[in-house]
């Protein structure tokens, strides 16, 4: 895979995470995608986590570009975390309305969305650190 850290990191440092997320069509409200994209699978295998679900694609807007660059992977992660958080919000709202969602499932979804977001933040921090180290190297 081709790594272009400058692209991804300049976007990150300029706070364009939101723009990256907005590039994709809005994830359907309340939908819970059950699969993983190929980019996510490779990312997860980097981390050593298991991926047993069949791969389905939920990325639309990158126009068919190969989803194996850092920028695309981070973009995919941001959208996934976003949809995870909105799904958790849907469940919490359902509990508040008196609907059929059990409260512990809403709690689990909230906690997992929050942890995923922290994970994403840590990844960003580490990548930024690596970039800074590289930029400080004397050539």
């Amino acid at each position: 895979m081709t790594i272009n850290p400058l692209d991804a990191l300049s976007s990150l440092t300029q706070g364009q995470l939101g723009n990256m997320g907005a590039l994709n069509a809005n994830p359907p409200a309340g939908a819970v995608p059950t699969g993983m994209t190929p980019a996510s699978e490779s990312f997860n295998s980097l981390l050593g986590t298991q991926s047993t679900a069949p791969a389905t694609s939920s990325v639309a807007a990158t126009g068919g570009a190969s989803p194996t660059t850092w920028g695309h992977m981070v973009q995919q992660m941001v959208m996934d975390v976003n949809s995870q958080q909105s799904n958790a919000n849907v469940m919490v709202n359902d509990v508040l309305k008196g609907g059929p969602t059990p409260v512990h499932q809403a709690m689990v979804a909230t906690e997992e969305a929050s942890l995923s977001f922290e994970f994403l933040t840590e990844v960003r921090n580490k990548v930024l650190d690596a970039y800074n180290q590289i930029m400080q190297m004397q050539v």
Partner: protein
Amino acid sequence: MSMIPGIDSAASALGVERTRLDVIAGNLANAQNTSDASGQVYRRKMVVFESQLNNALGESTGANAGSSVSARVVDDPSPMPKVYMPGHPKADKSGMVEMPNVDPLNEMVDMMTASRSYQANLQAIQTGRSMFEQSLKIVE
């Protein structure tokens, strides 16, 4: 009502048992009453219980699934006992007086049953509440 599991059912039962206790109290108070407001001898009241599902089958995975209970207060149709009291103002030609069809022993037994059920339903609400509080700790 989806936060505390089972609270809909338990709350309905609390109301129903409370109604039954009120009815029992009325029966006991009027156990010797041969002439009520309309001049009739007091007829025992009783409570008829019915269960109903909380919601349609499609929603039975939520916290408000299961059955509740409801109650109707009806007159007890069983016959009135007659007692021989010749000097009584309501005595008939042969000196028999119609007394209310209330047996205090039956009412006491019903009262104990209602009270036990009330306690059990309170326990169900407390247990559900403690389960809910535990689920909040997932996010701590």
